[in-house]
């Protein structure tokens, strides 16, 4: 049984049960549960088969970033099931290959148009902070979020945050999310959930799919707070169901109360890998080992120490060579690496695990900005292609801002501050004087990034800002 009953930090209040049909069989879901989660809770790992080799496929990211969980829903193929809440009587089918056209024309509503002052794409820490700051400055923005819930990845962060009081230090991420979402509601900030922004065109129209309807949004300003996606790394068997992003495992257990597996191999000892491993232990899941390709642990030492204390080994200079299994991971093979990251022969080790979690970095989600012609640059220190921007986070497109992980993968505290900076910058352009608040936030952000862990991100930001100026 994959359902988590008791948890040291979380209480799961599961809603009423609703029935849906999967491959001709009736299954139940809890209200609010997504299709992918409901299936997974029932022990279903295989969601589709690949187009050419017919290999079984399951979900990977669980937050609507990748395409691994696509299924046929009510006859429509290529629907992302990880962000689609189950509805009563929904017909869910495994998708074979690319998916056939719907047999009957789905009933789409005619498109509508909206005009906004500010549109914020993404309702995570950066987006919500931008929205709250704007509203408090006298400007009402619209938030567009593709997931069923606001709060982004904060809604699964059960650990206490670092930083100082101003950045909610000592508060668990889930509580920060709750505070921010409550404030958005208290301030009556309009927000679309379950709404995917899928296109941003050179005439500055944002195309959003909401409730079976195309919504075309024109806006004086945009803030792209679209977050980041987990990286897949190449190894044999990396498509076998049971290979997840570490964040996906976190979504399963901490948002939906579902165990991702019984025994996990964690790939990557950065903060994500270390934190998620500890949270797996809290959910009652065994962590066989954490492996790290580089010769040292990349995340905070204290997170590593928390795991070691429970007897979880952390092996540096080690990578995953192969995942074994057909419709579910059955084993994983690791191998040691020399100082040039070359495999050392005869150092393979077999692990009996049913789950492999990849915590091997994040890629900023920037496709919408790239589509609209925003100048981009590949900056490894920021996680990949990022939009060029100035100090106040305005991109090469006038009045189009970026904030949070989308401009370089970092963490929630800095995302919150970046959201605030973009909002103050917009307020300034609208003639509302926010100079002192803006400078305060810029200073605070500088202070937070001033330690050794901030060096890499600062070098990347300098590159993005300088390229924007030249």
């Amino acid at each position, binding site marked *: 049984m994959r359902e988590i009953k*008791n*948890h*040291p*930090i979380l209480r799961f209040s599961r809603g009423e049960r609703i029935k849906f049909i999967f491959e001709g069989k009736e299954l139940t879901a809890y209200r609010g549960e997504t299709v992918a989660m409901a299936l997974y809770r029932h022990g279903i790992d295989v969601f589709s088969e690949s187009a050419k080799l017919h290999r079984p496929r399951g979900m990977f990211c669980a937050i609507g970033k990748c395409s691994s969980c696509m299924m046929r829903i009510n006859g429509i193929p290529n629907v992302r099931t990880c962000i689609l809440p189950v509805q009563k009587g929904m017909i869910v089918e495994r998708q074979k290959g690319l998916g056939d056209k719907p047999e009957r024309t789905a009933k789409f509503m005619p498109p509508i148009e909206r005009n906004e002052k500010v549109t914020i794409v993404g309702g995570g820490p950066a987006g919500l902070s931008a929205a709250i700051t704007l509203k408090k400055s006298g400007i009402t923005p619209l938030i567009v979020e593709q997931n069923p819930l606001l709060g982004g990845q904060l809604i699964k962060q059960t*650990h*206490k*945050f*670092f*930083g*100082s*009081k101003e950045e909610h*230090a*000592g*508060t*668990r991420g889930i*509580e920060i999310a709750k505070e921010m979402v409550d404030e958005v509601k208290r301030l009556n900030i309009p927000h679309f959930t379950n709404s995917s922004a899928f296109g941003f065109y050179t005439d500055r129209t944002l195309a959003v799919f909401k409730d079976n309807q195309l919504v075309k949004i024109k806006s004086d300003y945009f803030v792209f707070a679209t977050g980041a996606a987990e990286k897949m790394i190449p190894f044999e068997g990396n498509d076998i169901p049971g290979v997840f992003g570490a964040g996906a495992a976190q979504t399963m257990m901490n948002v939906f109360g579902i165990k991702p597996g019984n025994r996990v191999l964690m790939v990557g*000892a950065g903060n994500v890998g270390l934190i998620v491993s500890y949270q797996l*232990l*809290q959910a*009652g899941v065994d962590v066989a080992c954490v492996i790290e390709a580089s*010769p*040292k*642990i990349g995340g*905070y*030492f*204290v*997170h*590593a*120490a*928390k*795991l*070691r*204390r*429970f*007897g*979880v080994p*952390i092996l*540096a200079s080690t990578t995953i060579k192969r995942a074994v299994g057909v419709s579910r991971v059955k084993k994983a093979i690791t191998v040691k690496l020399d100082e040039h990251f070359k495999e050392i022969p005869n150092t393979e080790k077999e692990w009996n695990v049913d789950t492999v979690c990849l915590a091997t970095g994040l890629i900023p989600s920037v496709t919408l900005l790239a589509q609209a012609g925003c100048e981009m640059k590949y900056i490894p220190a920021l996680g990949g292609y990022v939009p060029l921007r100035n100090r106040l986070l305005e991109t090469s497109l006038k009045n189009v801002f970026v904030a949070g992980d989308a401009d370089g993968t970092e963490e929630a505290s800095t995302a919150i501050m970046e959201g605030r900076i973009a909002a103050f910058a917009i307020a300034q352009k609208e003639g509302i004087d926010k100079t002192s608040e803006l400078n305060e936030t810029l200073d605070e952000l500088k*202070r*937070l*990034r*001033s*330690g*050794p*862990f*901030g060096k890499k991100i600062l070098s990347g930001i300098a590159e993005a800002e300088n390229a924007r100026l030249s």
Partner: protein
Amino acid sequence: MQDYLKVGYITLENLDFPENDIIEKHFVAVTECVQEIPCNPCVTSCPVKAIEMKGINGVPKINFEKCVGCGNCVAVCPGLAMFLVNIRNGKGRVSLPYEMLPLPETGNEVFLLNRVGERIGKGKVIRVFVPDEKFYSAVVTVEFDDVNLVKYVRNIEVIK
């Protein structure tokens, strides 16, 4: 590069530890936060200003003479890297943050675990402090016969 970043645990030579005459008086906080990370709730939660830190990215330094052993820092530390140590009536005592199920109860016998999760003895739970779990970790205090273990006990395993 410090070795602890290779293996994920720290050894005593990298840590400050109070003399026995101090910890025989009352509980005293010790820290295993040795890396410059942007975080300071231990400093702001200390009622007697016994923890010093140079800027938000500094490493906490505890004034063992000043510390009153209240345990605020143990409950608040996001890295679960603060502990209390005490020797009383010939017994060792350690207070540690604990965020797992089942939470032990006062009087329970538990295995004492070291920094790599090895069992190094048995002890008795003498106090379980459960603050608001939204912001704090539960703090479990264990007592054991071998006073030298105050330097090594950093986790417990509830005996089922």
